[in-house]
């Protein structure tokens, strides 16, 4: 696994590269370690508060540990009327965790998302941004098996 300092150094000379650096860190870690935020502040020569402010502004960035495979359930109106709540219940039951939590083995994280732009096949969930279409509670075990 690439060290976050090395990743940050790759982006520090890119104008406005802080968010790109955070994305790259998440591709390795699935989250942004808190120390990486402070390292980024130093590399981009901005106050820690600003580096932290950016990292916590965007819902796809997460400071602090979470599961390796991030499952997001779209909750926006088209998915809402298509039964997203049943998918949420099925995921929580299957993984034994609540929305916003990660499994104890660190394999999965469960998050709400707003529209992921795949509204031709609602409800939609994504795992590490890969979309799954017309999701029903019955489909959940098969989807999760891909990542176990």
């Amino acid at each position, binding site marked *: 696994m690439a060290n976050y300092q090395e990743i940050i150094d790759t982006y520090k000379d890119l*104008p406005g590269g802080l968010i790109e650096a955070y*994305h790259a860190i998440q591709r390795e870690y699935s989250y942004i370690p808190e120390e990486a935020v402070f390292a980024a502040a130093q590399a981009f020569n901005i106050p820690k508060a600003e580096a932290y402010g950016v990292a916590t502004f965007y819902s796809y960035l997460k400071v602090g540990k979470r599961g390796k495979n991030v499952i997001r359930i779209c909750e926006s109106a088209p998915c809402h009327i298509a039964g997203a709540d049943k998918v949420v219940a099925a995921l929580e039951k299957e993984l034994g965790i609540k929305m916003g939590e990660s499994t104890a083995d660190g394999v999965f994280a469960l998050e709400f998302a707003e529209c992921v732009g795949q*509204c031709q096949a609602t409800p939609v969930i994504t795992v590490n941004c890969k979309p799954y279409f017309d999701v029903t509670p019955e489909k959940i075990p098969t989807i999760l098996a891909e990542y176990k």
Partner: protein
Amino acid sequence: MAEEMRIVLRNLDKIDPLKIDDYLAVGGYKSLQKARTMSRLEVIEEVKKSGLRGRGGAGFNCGMKWSFSYNIDSDQKYVVCNADEGEPGTYKDRIIMENDPQTLLEGMAICGYAIGSNKGYIYCRGEYPYVVEILNQAIAQAKGKGVLGDFDIEVRMGAGAYVCGEESALIESIEGHRGEPRFKPPFPPVEGLWGKPTIVNNVETFANIPVILEKGGDWYKGIGAASYPGTKVLTLTGDVVNRTFVEVPTNTTIREVIYGFGGGIIGGKNFKAVQIGGTSGGFIPEAFLDTPIDFDSMTAIGAVLGSGAVFVMDETRDIVDVVERIAKFFEHESCGKCTPCREGTKRMHEMMHNVNSGTARAGDLDLMEKLGGVMGVACLCGLGQAAPAPVLTTLKHFRTDYAAKFN
């Protein structure tokens, strides 16, 4: 029935999007070549003549916008493509970028030539990392062929903030900051990315440009509605038989979209409402279904064309429940910079929740209308200004649904 007309999706299923040779074989980059034989002003005049208005939702005259940046003498100018489509129910820009990325690059390069810019950015939403890959491949191929000349394009990825669809928030995000909108003026065409003149246009807007240069502004002006010419890509979601995308002339009516292209309501049920333009759009009752979808006709009925999302609800849908969900969306997506939006979206969601769960107080509906009115004028950016629209339009057209929650 009205016919589909493909301008921005003209190459759909006809070319391999990842092969630039396919795009070149169907005449790709000829419009850019043509533009470069014209004067910059002639290019802008041609776009102005077409009457093309922004396809991201604000509907500003595209050529006019370009002329603002053209008129400024600056050592650096930028062309930015807004590919941050975040309006729930919208995926038209994804369809364009997945199927014909080169047409977007060509449109941006034409803009670059017209305003005098050699640097473009595509700000693609974080939900679409697979589209970012397509765009990067397309850029590499275009550079390899040398078709872009000295115009450079870079992709930046958003990270799940709806507000970044607002152009000044998007610019802040490219600069590596929190995506909070700026106070305007100055507007981006004058002072945008890193303080330089910047044109921000939507994916669909740019995708129209090569065709306008090829066939001429007069040709384009003759398509669809006179005040908002051309086509619009719509995405149909909800209780409609064909949940699909369609590109239609802008004089097509809502009824033709839902019952023609959409195939009507699932299960033969009755229509209840349609929300057009994304989650910030107004709810439209049956009485207005014969309205053409163009920008001004939609505004005239108190709705919007917006992003072109068409979210259909059948007679069994609980409108108040749907609007509560939408109110939650805005509370979540408000960036928090201005008080009317930060507090307003929170209180609106709170009241919608109370109404929906049967715990609202008498007078709450009037209070919601008042709050919505204040937000419409007092919020800093379009997010907060449009956020109350679903509440206000449903209070207007579906008040009995609200009243039923008090029983």
